[in-house]
């Protein structure tokens, strides 16, 4: 049976402009496409990936461009459409002053004191 995997994404906005996406969200999506049984938990900065209003401008360096800067909130929506459950650590969002109504819908908050129990449901933990 396929192993149940929890992908915890903690580090965000790393080289997202050069990549035009977040490499760990990208990897999670690619693994799901390859048949993995995956769930996603956002912690740390990465809770901000749930914010609706992320709108980076394209950048120009003379003739060179970053034409398609990333919109992680859209990537999260696509992950959910693929059937990946997306969760976020409530306290990390609160600490950063991110109101829940500023986030896209469909993401389930969990509390820090539930995390051991939450992790217990999975066979493997990838902590990025």
């Amino acid at each position, binding site marked *: 049976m396929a192993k149940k995997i929890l992908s915890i994404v903690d580090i965000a906005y790393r*080289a997202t402009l050069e990549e*035009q996406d977040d490499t760990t969200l990208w990897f999670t*999506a690619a693994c799901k496409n390859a048949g993995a049984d995956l769930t996603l938990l956002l912690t740390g900065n990465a809770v901000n990936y749930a914010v609706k209003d992320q709108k980076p401008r394209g950048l120009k*360096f*003379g003739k*060179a461009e970053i*034409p398609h800067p990333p919109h992680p909130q859209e990537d999260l929506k696509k992950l959910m459409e693929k059937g990946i459950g997306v969760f976020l650590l409530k306290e990390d969002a609160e600490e950063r002053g991110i109101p829940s109504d500023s986030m896209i819908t469909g993401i389930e908050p969990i509390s820090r004191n539930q995390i051991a129990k939450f992790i217990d449901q999975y066979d493997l933990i990838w902590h990025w």
Partner: protein
Amino acid sequence: MGKKLTLLIMDPPYESPNSTTALRITEAALRKGHSVNVFAYEGAVSLTFAEQKGHANPVKGTTLEQEQHPLPKEMVAGLFEMAQGDAKLNWVNCGLCVDERGVANWIPGPVRGGPGDFIKMVQESDNTVVIPTK
């Protein structure tokens, strides 16, 4: 009359937001008519590596052409094109850092150098900013 800014960068391509910010600062300074010295130390010497190439994105479902994957070498080339007249771009790749990484085949523009070149830049500049890696 343009001024002179020196930046030291040390993050490799595709690893840190520092690279993009440093290139944004360089772009803005050149556009305003200032000269910029960039000393690329450690991983940052790979920013100008000529063998970088774009790729399609199977997760987004984009082709090579649609994805227009950004290549740091092209951004640096874009900055060299902007550097006309008095607003000069002087880009030095740390030679020993280049050797150990094997990235000596770089785009036209940058030159090989070392800490002595950086010190010269620092002495003749209006400001120097070291952008460390984490």
